[in-house]
């Protein structure tokens, strides 16, 4: 799905304007949204990939019209609604009217250090040898995924070169849609700037993406 998140190469967003004094959070609610989103993740209703997809599924108006944590908050509301952990009525009224589904999975304060400190590795045993090797010429798929994908549209249907094999990783395209982890080999693939942008490219520049095996075909 080419959603509003798919920003690479788009124009019109203005200068980067780095501000060394910019704080990590601009208001108290931003801190809460970060903490609440991570805490709700432990309820186990959705995967990291599904939560990314929830943000991508916001309308372009909502996505571009919101701050970063504003996007997170709207996506969190939608995830909780979709999985039945809260109801639309509860969200509108602010009053509890339905029982919780997974209160036993509430993240305890004593679990914070280990949850954040360990993370959730996504490498998995491989069931087949890697199809490509560093140096191989490949072309990314032309297919526009109807759902979640981590193939940016600027790198769709483009010839590139495999520069590294990262291992066998959970496939976001299925894991975001409750279709399982379906791990695949993951490659770093490099595209010369002119392949992606033609004459607009800056000389001597290239872009690298991480691409799962099903994103790639031989040339």
């Amino acid at each position, binding site marked *: 799905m080419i959603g509003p*998140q798919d*920003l690479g*190469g788009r*124009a019109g*967003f203005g200068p*980067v304007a*780095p*501000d060394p004094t*910019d704080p*990590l959070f*601009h*208001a*108290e*609610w931003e*801190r*809460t949204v*970060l*903490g*609440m989103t991570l*805490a709700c993740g432990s309820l186990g209703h959705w995967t990291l990939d599904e939560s*990314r997809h929830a943000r991508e599924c916001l309308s372009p108006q909502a996505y571009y019209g919101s701050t*970063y944590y*504003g996007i997170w*908050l709207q996506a*969190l509301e939608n995830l909780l609604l979709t999985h039945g*952990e*809260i109801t639309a009525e509860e*969200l509108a009224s*602010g*009053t509890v009217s339905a*029982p*919780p589904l997974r209160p036993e999975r*509430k*993240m*305890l304060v004593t*679990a*914070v*250090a280990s949850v*954040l*400190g360990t*993370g*959730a590795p*996504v*490498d998995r045993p491989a069931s087949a040898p890697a199809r490509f090797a560093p140096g191989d010429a490949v072309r990314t798929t032309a297919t526009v995924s109807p759902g979640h994908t981590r193939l*940016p549209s*600027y790198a769709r249907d483009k010839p590139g070169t495999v520069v*590294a094999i990262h291992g066998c990783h959970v496939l*976001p395209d299925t894991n975001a849609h409750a279709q399982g982890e379906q791990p695949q080999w*993951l490659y770093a693939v490099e595209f010369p700037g002119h392949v*992606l*942008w033609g004459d607009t*490219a*800056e000389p001597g*520049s*290239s*872009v*690298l*993406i*991480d*691409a799962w095996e099903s994103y790639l075909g031989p040339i």
Partner: protein
Amino acid sequence: MHDHPHHDSPHHDHGPDNRLDPMEARTRALETLLVEKGLVDPATIEAIVQSCEERIGPRNGARVVAKAWVDPEFAEWLKQDATAAINSLGFAGRQSEHLAALFNDAETHHIIVCTLCSCYPWAVLGLPPSWYKSPPYRSRVVIEPRKVLAEFGVELPEEMRVRVWDSTSEMRYLVIPQRPANTEHLDEEALAALVTRDSMIGTGLVSLPGEAAQ
């Protein structure tokens, strides 16, 4: 958590009627609902945020860089298996489960971005700055990296290769900037103090105080 000192928040205006701004109100409404349903604990939320503010940050990454500069064996380990090498210094966890180090040298400059969201190596750099998560950087750095670098005050030699790494998977990248000249007398700690966050994203270079990094 409501007694936590407020950060810079120009829109966070408690007027005489104590009205909350819309996002503050919307966040409090959801939080209250989840707390009352027994699904989140406010103490957990606060502990998560505090951990993100204090346990992780660019000082961790700077230690990795400085060690790589002074210890060739560690630098080699970082090239071969950055996850293990960085974990050995005690830096690990969420958004840093799988790490790779990108070594800048005289021929090549690396920059990291996440055009699709905000993937960033939390364990070594902390939470990303606003500009890293925002549309201007995410849209432009892949197509015009040198113009973007210029906005950070960085100008690279014309012949230098620029490689932009779009973090599309759970691999997290850390740029190892070039060690500045005339730093042979500095120890690891003094070197780490020179390493900036932006130099480990690739939007900055490391320089000695008072010297322009060129």
